[in-house]
């Protein structure tokens, strides 16, 4: 037995956020913690090791030694015997130390002698990184997202721990990179006998890779057992909600609402940026892209990060720059960004990825939703506006007691509903959804997707859905367009 958790509890500021969580991990096994955000899965993973401001109770034994209740110095030593992988590889690595320096530090964290150059090269090869010479001398910001996460994993296993704790290790990565990281974990479990405690909201990955799964809800384990069984045939109400919220590529497609006349047509749109330096080189973010959207049609724009999909959507919506080509609205040319009139602005409305960041924290929900009405619907008076705001909130499924709340008091899903209500306020005909569900966890993202499906039917709204989630795109959209390196490659 490498890691055994028995009756784990956790409190933050006297409030119970976790109770009675028990599981155990043997060499080579993988236990996955799944659940909606706020269900306590990250707390379960980190609280015993003192990596959260939470007070932990109960018992958690790492290789037979109790973690709960020991002194700070003892816990520090025990913590060093496990390895940790965090969600954001971009920020979890120290920006000012080379990969080589960070690997060497991790290698020595349990007292091993300084690693030789060959040992570090072998370690990088073990996590599937090429060009070890360049990477060892490089700072983290010079690495790609996937390379960073592999480097992070190399740091986490450098001191040959028996237990690896990974918190959403793939959620910041694109689909192909995710699969690669999951395969790497499988290999490390086999070759090193590593026990893996995995926090994830990627249910298909959990079903495919984990030995056992624990489904948490509100700080309690609601379901536990063989990973594939728990995630395919959940018996609890919470489990079924979680599993059904996840769009899957194998479920039958719902009928699509009918499509009307052509609405928007982009011809040969390109966007480029000047690169820093005096050689005046330019970065071509979007090259010669054609795109058509009809009334009531939902079009998915998919691609890796950096493929130019958001840049294209922003150029079309006149929110970002455009360097070439033209955009037509019902056959007439749409003016460039600086010359858009309120009448044009009304037609296309955006919803962004991070709802918390796209709402002004000092405004109330009522003010946020009413703002576009002031400019884009000047014919309404104050009373009509207030009435309209109430109707809009009702339409996105928020009660009127949300009117006076501010963004900081909203959950991610609620904030995204407010952002959608704001976008609907001026009665647009096209909604630009820029990764509108990507920052939300499965359950919440599923509900937002349901809301969008409903709006698609009731309002006959056209949508351009920028996403890297192929399953969500398939559920919502009539057509999918793929972008790669700034070009549209598939339609």
């Amino acid at each position, binding site marked *: 037995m490498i890691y055994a958790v028995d009756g784990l509890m956790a409190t933050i500021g006297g409030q119970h956020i976790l109770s009675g969580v028990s599981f155990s991990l043997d060499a080579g096994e993988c236990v996955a913690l799944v659940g909606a955000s706020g269900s306590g899965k990250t707390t379960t993973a980190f609280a015993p*090791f003192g*990596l959260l401001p939470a007070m932990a109770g109960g018992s958690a034994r790492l290789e037979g030694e109790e973690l709960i209740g020991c002194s700070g110095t003892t816990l*520090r*030593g*025990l*913590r*060093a*015997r*496990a390895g*940790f992988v*965090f969600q*954001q590889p971009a*920020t*979890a*690595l*120290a*920006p*000012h*130390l080379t990969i080589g320096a960070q690997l060497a*530090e*991790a290698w020595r*964290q*349990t007292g091993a002698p300084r690693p030789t150059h060959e040992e570090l090269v072998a370690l990088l090869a073990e996590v599937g990184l090429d060009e070890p010479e360049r990477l060892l001398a490089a*700072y983290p*910001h010079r690495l790609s997202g996937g390379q960073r996460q592999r480097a*992070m994993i190399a*740091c986490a296993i450098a001191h040959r721990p028996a237990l690896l704790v990974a918190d959403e290790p793939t959620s910041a990565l694109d689909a192909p990179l995710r699969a690669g990281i999951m395969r790497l974990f499988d290999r490390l479990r086999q070759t090193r006998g590593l026990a893996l405690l995995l926090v994830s909201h990627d249910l298909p990955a959990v079903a495919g890779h984990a030995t056992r799964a624990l489904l948490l809800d509100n700080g309690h384990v609601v379901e536990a057992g063989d990973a594939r069984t728990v995630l395919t045939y959940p018996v609890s109400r919470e489990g079924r909600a979680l599993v059904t919220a996840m769009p899957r590529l194998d479920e039958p497609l719902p009928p699509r609402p009918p499509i009307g006349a052509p609405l928007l047509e982009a011809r040969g749109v390109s966007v480029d940026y000047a690169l*820093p*330096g*005096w050689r005046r080189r330019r970065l071509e973010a979007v090259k010669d892209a054609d795109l058509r959207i009809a009334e009531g049609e939902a079009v998915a724009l998919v691609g890796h990060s950096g493929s130019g999909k958001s840049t294209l959507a922003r150029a079309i919506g006149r929110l970002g720059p455009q360097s070439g080509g033209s955009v037509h609205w019902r056959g007439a040319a749409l003016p460039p960004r600086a010359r858009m009139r309120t009448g044009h602005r009304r037609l296309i409305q955006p919803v962004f990825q991070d709802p918390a960041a796209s709402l002004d924290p000092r405004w109330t929900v009522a003010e946020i939703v009413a703002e576009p009405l002031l400019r884009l619907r000047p014919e309404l008076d104050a009373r009509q506006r207030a009435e309209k705001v109430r109707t809009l909130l009702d339409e996105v499924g928020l009660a009127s007691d949300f009117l006076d709340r501010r963004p900081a008091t909203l959950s991610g899903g609620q904030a995204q509903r407010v952002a959608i209500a704001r976008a609907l306020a001026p009665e647009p005909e096209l909604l630009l959804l820029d990764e509108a569900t990507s920052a939300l966890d499965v359950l919440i993202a599923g509900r937002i997707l349901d809301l969008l499906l409903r709006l698609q039917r009731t309002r006959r709204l056209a949508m351009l859905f920028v996403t890297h989630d192929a399953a969500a795109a398939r559920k919502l959209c009539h057509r999918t367009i793929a972008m790669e390196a700034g070009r549209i490659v598939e339609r």
Partner: protein
Amino acid sequence: MRAILVRRLMTALPTMAAVILLSFLLMRVAPGGPFDAERPLDPATRAALAHAYGLDRPLIEQLGRYLLGLAQGDFGPSLVYRDFSVGDLVRQGLPVSLTLGGLALAVALPLGIAAGALAAMRPGGWADRVLMLAATIATLLPSFVTGPLLVLAFALLLGWLPVSGWGGGDPRHLLLPVIALALPTAGAIARLARAGLATTLAQDHVRTARARGLSEGRILLRHALRPALVPVASYVGPAAAGLLTGAVVVETVFALPGLGRYFVQGALNRDYPLVLAVVILYAGLILLFNLIADLLYGWLDPRAAG
């Protein structure tokens, strides 16, 4: 690194040219001239003096002559200290100012960073509160208050140190002015370091360091301090140029023969070449220290170097 150097140098030359041109013209636009004293000179003497220094020529010719001299390292004659060239005056004053400012910087940097780090170890603890209060007071008190207070305490009451004067660079003469000059800078550095560390210590990579089982002291020194010092570097660049080219107030309080007083007297007397020389020196140092700060950013946080 090379790219930063090249880019900086390419902007430094036009900047220097603009500084020289603007100060040259502004000095001439300001009312009054170098030969206006309380008792007016008779017109003939005045004209003779103006002719001797070339001030009766067209402005463009004066500028041309000045630039030509400058290119040969000649800052011209002082119009007020008639027996000296501006080069002589600067050669006398600069070593004093450089010593004073360099020592003040050498005291303020480690003192400020150490105080900031100590305060950031336990935010809200007693050390944090005492140190930040001290830093605020040090920043707020002008050196014309701290200077005389230091003299009062250590020179007049205790009699340990001399009251004023250069003493040929005797360390005992330097101690009080260096402290008076270093205190406000150290206070500002301490506050910036404390704020930078508070931000950095809350970042993800510090949690990674904690997960590695490192001690809090090691986390602070190895994982947090360097990225946290970026704001300090951007403050110290221009501040260092100011310290090194003469702290007017401290030099006056302690009667030190530094560069600062030439700046003030030169401006009041319309001693055109003297003021221009000090301005050029100051601008050059600002450019130099901003370049050093830029290179420092790249080391403190490699993301800044691109």
